[in-house]
């Protein structure tokens, strides 16, 4: 494996609110090499979108406090100047968003928006930028791309709009693409097309991709590595196989168990009980403790008093849990077998 292209180390993001500082992301670390895909998974409010926007430096940097390090291709970004960050945004790393209708400016043609994205970073003529934009539209599968250049976002379908977003993200050949819930706002059939497109483009350009999602189907479809987030923290981090077949953290297990399945008719969904924690009022111990069914198995009530660390487990991936490794594996095996229909 080559050197990591992106290194995130101990990233923390704190917002000022009227009720005091709110730490939305705490101690997030991961690395990513070119051509690979990392999925960040979690419920709403788990800090996954905040993390991705922090990587891009999209938070109001005067008000929001950021700690830790983000190194992209050898350049540190957390303490970079606005100018340095702007030079990287849209050039070395690009981002596509959840709802392509609201993420595209309603008053400008898509051609204008694409050309603008190109000309911010590349010094070339308007005609060259226009030609480049048309090539990109072709590449993301937009038919009669030359005519579409003069269309406004509202004249395109949802899937087409997301393709335009992707074309805009990739117009300067970024080495890192951050996709924040890229398929959530789309029809299921279109979702698959967009995922296929992203995978194809990754193969072609060798882009590193971070995909933010709560959809484990997306994770299984494209990710190499998975970071599971809960309450602003990484609770489990490993290869996609490890996360799906050998999950150890009870929260990850809960996510997998709560997925609807086609092969089990009449089976009730198995949701994780309770609500995600309020970030202003996190539990003292493990943040997942109030919703965890297995905290009794940990001696001395450590789940109530002590925050677990993210530790390397025997299986080779990182887990944040007080349960003994053997106990976790036992629970996982039992739950997964039950899910697969092994228990009659």
């Amino acid at each position, binding site marked *: 494996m080559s050197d990591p292209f992106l290194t995130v180390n101990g990233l923390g993001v704190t917002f000022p609110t009227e009720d005091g500082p709110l730490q939305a992301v705490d101690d997030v670390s991961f690395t990513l090499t070119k051509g690979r895909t990392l999925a960040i998974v979690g419920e709403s409010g788990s800090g996954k979108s905040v993390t991705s*926007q922090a990587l*891009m430096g*999209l938070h109001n940097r005067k008000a929001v406090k950021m700690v830790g390090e983000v190194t992209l291709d050898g350049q540190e970004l957390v303490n970079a100047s*606005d100018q340095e960050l*702007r*030079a*990287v*945004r*849209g*050039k070395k790393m*690009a*981002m596509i*968003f959840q*709802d392509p209708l*609201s*993420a*595209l*400016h*309603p*008053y*400008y*043609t898509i051609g204008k928006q694409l050309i*603008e*994205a190109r000309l*911010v*970073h590349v010094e070339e003529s308007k005609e060259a930028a226009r030609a480049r934009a048309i090539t990109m539209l072709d590449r993301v599968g937009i038919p009669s791309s030359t005519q579409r250049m003069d269309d*406004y976002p*509202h004249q395109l379908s949802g899937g087409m709009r997301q393709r335009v*977003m992707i074309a*805009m993200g990739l117009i300067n050949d970024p080495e890192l693409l951050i996709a924040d819930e890229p398929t959530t706002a789309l029809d299921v059939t279109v979702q698959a097309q967009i995922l296929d497109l992203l995978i194809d483009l990754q193969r072609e350009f060798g882009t590193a991709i971070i995909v933010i999602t709560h959809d484990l189907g997306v994770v299984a479809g494209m990710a190499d590595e998975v970071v599971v987030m809960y309450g602003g923290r990484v609770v489990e981090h490993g290869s996609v196989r490890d996360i799906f077949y050998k999950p150890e953290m009870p929260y990850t297990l809960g996510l997998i168990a709560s997925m609807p399945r086609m092969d089990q008719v009449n089976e009730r969904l198995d949701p994780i009980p309770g609500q995600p924690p309020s970030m202003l009022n996190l539990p003292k111990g493990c943040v997942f403790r109030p919703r965890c069914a297995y905290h009794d198995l940990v001696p001395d009530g450590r789940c109530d008093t002590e925050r677990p660390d993210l530790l390397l487990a025997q299986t080779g991936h990182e887990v944040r849990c007080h349960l003994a490794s053997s106990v976790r594996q036992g629970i996982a095996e039992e739950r997964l077998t039950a899910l697969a229909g092994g228990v009659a």
Partner: protein
Amino acid sequence: MAGYVVRRLLAMFGMLIALTIVTFLMFAVIPADPARLSCGKTCTPEIIAANRVLYGIDKPIAEQYVAFAKGLVVGRTYGSGATEVNCPAPCLGYSFVQDENVTDLIKTALPVTINLAIGAFILFMVVGISVGVISALRRGKVTDRVSMGVALFFYSFPVFFIGLVLLYFVKIKWRLIPASVEYVPFYEDPVAYLQVMILPWITLALLYAAFYSRLTRNQMLETLGEDYIRTARAKGLAERVVIGKHAFRAGLTPIVTAAGLDLAGILGGAVITESIFRLNGIGRLSIQAVTNTDLPVVVGTVLVAAVFVIVANLIVDLLYAVIDPRVRLT
């Protein structure tokens, strides 16, 4: 688009006819008799009766309206012989109180009002929008709070108060500007023109700039939270492009609406401002007409104001389509 404009113009025509009917009905409803009012001290029933015939108000109201409408198109003659009065088309009526054609009265007053309106408009749009944008960018900071506080201050004060204060200090107490200057067109005497216009402009501009700075600030703050602003930042655009181009364009629609109607409103007569500064514009003309029960002038000024509002509405609607491509005029 062309079809839309034609249909809107036709509708405008219909609306104006309806408006003339409504204003004309005032003649029938109000308990004043123009024939008696313009009769003078040595009034006899014979003179009043003669006046009624002369003014054309001896006939039924419907017939009077037809005469009025006809006068608009082909002109009109009141009375005959020695008392004959000519009112060429477009005749809005004849003011027997002022012994002049209403059309001529309006023609004299209109340039004053137009100069007042356009000068004030440019002033308050530039100031209001700039202050609003800066406030939005410095949200919560001292600049924002001070400018919004000042804006609220001027927005709360009635225009006659601001006008009188300016008049008293600038013209009377400090004598910065000669107190008695009559309106002269800019091309005749630019200095005198500015001496007359500057205070009315400032008076109107203070009130409206306060409104527009608050409106612009709110619009900017609303659009700055939109997803496409985040996209613009994610592209690596400089903050000044994000705000000056992407956010401002998106927040423009309500500002254009309000601006169009406000400009039309002032063109229809800034009654208080014109009265304070003794500018003989449409506003002052109409307030004097109302005071003197000079009904033909009232009808005329109401019509002029209505035309401005209706035309402004049409222009604003056309501008919507220019600003927002999602608006289709059909």
